[in-house]
């Protein structure tokens, strides 16, 4: 048994590793630049009025602070045309543009040369002091230049080149220096197009970056318990997580307890009384419960029982923290909590309850048809003993399997309910993090859920052995 457990725990490690990899790579692939997101505070600020130099400096510093100036992973798998240090280029959209060019022309030095030249022309243009005669032309030049530095489509780039050429020709003397930079850009572009080495893109290459990479930094910190700080409010992620998970776990545990408490006897009852009217009614009700979506039930409960226009039996939201603080005695506090928990717990529980009861019923019916049950009855044992002692234990197996899946479900299933009842738990935290692209929080939530899922399976495995003596782990009893 112990040996098996150790083996299982060892399997956890690669599983967790793969999960972390998937989450991590998702964050890299999702559109949007986290650095800009933070600096821009959700798009409310605007840097058009700031000199681009200040904005660029702020960008570089923030990028470094977040560790986003490092390569993503230990290795990168690509073709030999892609350079090893592409990650050093700031701004996600610039990297994407360069990748496009590499894909097309497979000649990094020329691509880089064009990129540098076009950037240098762009900067010179933005620094250019236009007078009243050239001002309109400069505005149009800037538009064309923006098209040049952000496009990889040859047709559009050529068109922008043409526009620029015509515009620069309007004031050849004033734009002398600009024109030189522009010509250098154009030359670099045609060099890039002619000196292609497409064969390079056919040769796969692996680049190694060592431990100085984003994933390693994050993973080592994560293992040390440092989950980073939230993008939203700069709080340590572990604080937010602790606050949120406490609430979710307590509610989940109560809910799991209630589920088993009600579902098991209900299942046994409906299996034992199979075919009777009362059993049919119970089964129908369970079936209906199972098919009702919890967000709908939650909304109905709040609207009808939560003190809106109908009955005010229960509070409409939250866990009553303020009231609990104001209350004095233990019983008063407890009753306030229970009062607040009734509606969320109903929503949390009824779905899994119905499901579990159905499973229990199925398992029990199976067992009740077994020969040894008939034997037990033939021996003249009391019906109670037959059901609870002989049949019950053997019918528990499917329920235990389910335990493993109930555990993580509780966490994810809570998302909707937490949003509706305004309980600041893990589900709400996750949803807010997803909407706000708050990666540090999201990583942590995913990892914690993953660990819980694995633990759930482990517990289920142990329970199997406890319930069914026929199941042993390892080969000690050969």
């Amino acid at each position, binding site marked *: 048994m112990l040996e098996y457990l150790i083996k299982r725990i060892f399997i956890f490690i690669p599983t967790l590793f793969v999960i972390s990899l998937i989450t991590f790579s998702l964050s890299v692939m999702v559109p949007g630049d986290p650095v800009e997101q933070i600096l821009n*505070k959700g798009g409310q600020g605007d840097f058009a009025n700031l000199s681009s130099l200040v904005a660029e400096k702020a960008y570089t510093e923030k990028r470094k602070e977040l560790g986003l100036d490092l390569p993503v992973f230990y290795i990168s798998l690509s073709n030999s045309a892609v350079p090893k240090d592409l990650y050093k280029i700031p701004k996600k959209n610039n990297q994407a543009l360069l990748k496009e060019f590499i894909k097309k022309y497979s000649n990094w030095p020329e691509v880089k040369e064009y990129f540098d030249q076009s950037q240098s022309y762009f900067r010179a243009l933005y620094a250019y002091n236009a007078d009243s005669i050239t001002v309109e032309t400069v505005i149009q030049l800037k538009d064309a230049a923006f098209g040049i530095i952000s496009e990889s489509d040859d047709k559009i780039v050529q068109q922008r080149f043409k526009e620029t050429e015509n515009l620069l020709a309007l004031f050849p003397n004033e734009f002398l220096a600009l024109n030189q930079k522009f010509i250098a850009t154009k030359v670099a572009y045609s060099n890039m197009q002619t000196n292609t080495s497409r064969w390079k893109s056919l040769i796969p290459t692996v680049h190694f970056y060592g431990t100085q990479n984003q994933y390693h930094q994050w993973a080592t910190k994560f293992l040390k318990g440092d989950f980073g700080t939230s993008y939203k409010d700069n709080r340590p992620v572990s604080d937010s997580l602790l606050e949120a998970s406490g609430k979710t776990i307590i509610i989940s545990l109560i809910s799991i307890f209630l589920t088993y408490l009600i579902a098991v*006897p209900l299942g046994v009852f409906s299996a034992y009384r199979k075919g009777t009217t009362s059993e049919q009614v119970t089964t129908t009700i369970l079936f209906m419960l199972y098919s009702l979506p919890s967000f709908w039930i939650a909304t109905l409960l709040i609207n009808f029982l939560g003190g809106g226009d109908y009955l005010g039996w229960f509070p409409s939201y939250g866990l009553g923290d303020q009231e609990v603080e104001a209350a004095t005695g233990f019983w008063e506090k407890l009753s306030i909590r229970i009062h607040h928990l009734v509606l969320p717990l109903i929503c949390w529980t009824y779905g899994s309850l119905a499901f579990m009861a159905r499973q229990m019923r199925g398992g029990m019916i199976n067992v009740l048809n077994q020969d040894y049950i008939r034997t037990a009855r033939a021996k003249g044992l009391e019906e109670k003993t037959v059901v609870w002692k002989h049949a019950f234990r053997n019918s528990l197996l499917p329920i235990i399997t389910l335990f493993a899946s109930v555990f993580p479900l509780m966490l994810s299933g809570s998302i909707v309910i937490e949003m509706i009842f305004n309980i*600041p738990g893990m589900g709400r935290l996750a949803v807010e993090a997803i909407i706000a692209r708050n990666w540090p929080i999201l990583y942590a939530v995913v990892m914690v859920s993953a660990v819980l899922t694995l633990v759930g399976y482990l517990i289920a495995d142990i329970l199997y052995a406890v319930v069914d003596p026929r199941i042993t782990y390892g080969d000690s009893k050969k």
Partner: protein
Amino acid sequence: MFSARVLIYICLIFLLGACNSNKSPQKVYKDQVIIHSLSDPQGLVSLTSNDAQASQINANIFQSLLNYSHDELILVPVLAVGLPEIVHEGNGMKLTYEIKPEAQWTDGSPVLASDILFSFKVVFTPGVNSMHAQPGIDFVDDIVLYEDNPRKITFLCNQVYMLADHNTGTMQVIPEYLFDPEGLIKKYSYKELKSGGSLSQNEDIKKFVTFMNSEESSRSPKYIQGSGPYVLQSWVTDQRVILEKKNDWWGHAFEKENQFFQAYPKRLVYETINDFNTALTALKDEKLDVILVTPVKEYMDLDDSPKFTENYVKSEPPMLSYTYIGLNMRDQILKDKQVREALAVLVDVDEINRTLLYGQQTRIVADIHPIFKDDYNNDIPLRKFDMQRATALLEAAGWKDSDGDGIRDKILNGRKTPLTLTYNYNSGNPIRENVGLMLQNWWKQAGIKLDVVPLDWTLYLEQLRSNKVQISYNSWVTSPKPNDPKQLWHSTSRNGGSNYTGFGTAETDKLIESILVELDPKKRSVLYKQWQQVLNDEVPAIFLYTQNFRNAIHKRFDNVVPTAKYPGYWEAGFKIKEGYKVEE
């Protein structure tokens, strides 16, 4: 049976819990205002966090030299004795303020000019998360303090700017003694910090930046206290922020001067509820006192609820905002003014307002709010839906249905191009989606095919910034400041900025610039009218409407002054009406 007994017990416990609610004949209210908020603020120091939620809360904690009066929306003195003395010098200007001698921080120490200088320095300290505040005060070149008068401060600006007094006056001031007790940035001048340079590597600066960007400085009650009437009492993440009134606040002596010195409720509670349905149920249950209801239908439906009408009143002051459909002028189809004009007369704004927004909105001709009567151009008529004119315009622009497929086409750059356009909106926004579908329907009748495509918010923003969206739906919330068209309509704001329509020529840039340097409101009004005419003539956007706030406020409050400033009321000024019982 065991399980049956347990079941009964559980039911009993639940029932006991259910009986917990007690209703007394005359309700006794707590001396507090509970205000709904959709999400937590990022932090409570305006210099490092600028979300709407934060600005509502911290307006009760920190003050500024000046602020906009709630009714007239003009600048009135708060920390300052009066409006600044403005002197023109060469190409620039000098603004001198004097602080009220009575003004105090929480610990009783006076608010001094050095605190104001400190706050301005924080904005430019390299590394501090305050970039959002930089553009507004970038024109301030240097700041002068006076040895003989520690309450006097002068801002030196190298340019004339119409918002100089607005932007220097309305920036919130934070206490130096709390935020920089060690004097980490004291030895650096405003100018040094503003020029940045290699200061970010300096150990003292690094230490200060770490502190200013930390959780502690932006949310701990130890630091969230200023010269305003309230201090932060507690903040439970994602649940509530509670502010408590100071015992003897210095500002009470100025109660008669203006609303910013009125502070009556003992506590202000900002309750975070993400789900509107839940929040509205809580409202009917009197768990909330004030709510801003964004979904229009839910707001209209409230009138049907007896519990609501019994306890609440609606308040709908105009909101400083405007909404428009942006047309990308850099697009090869939309760069033709005739096409844009045709699209503009193919939008029945009144119909949108009626069907989607319950007729709640006020139409506008351009980016100026009608509340600013002197600036708003009444001579421009509102466009009417006109299919005939649209058809004529499109024909004149060369768009004809040559192949009879119902969609107009034209030879562009040597290729036959159908008149197909794309409307993007951020996914999950039903109003924007429905507007798109309505456009699609109208435009189809005129031979224009419109694709309505939702984009994820980040992607939508990115596409807008790089001028890749053909047709977009935009809403802007503005402030009582004179309208600064630069951010949205100046040519320097496109190619990465917020000028999503790509509007702007040297001429229009010049007009914007002349508005920005005009200090005389009367002359500025003339320019504003010209500006609206330009926007109307060039049609870079189809201006739709401006919204009203949709607030619900508990009936027990008196002295509720509706205002066009966000969020439409000043909670600290709420008094209790006679006939309502309040806990002592």
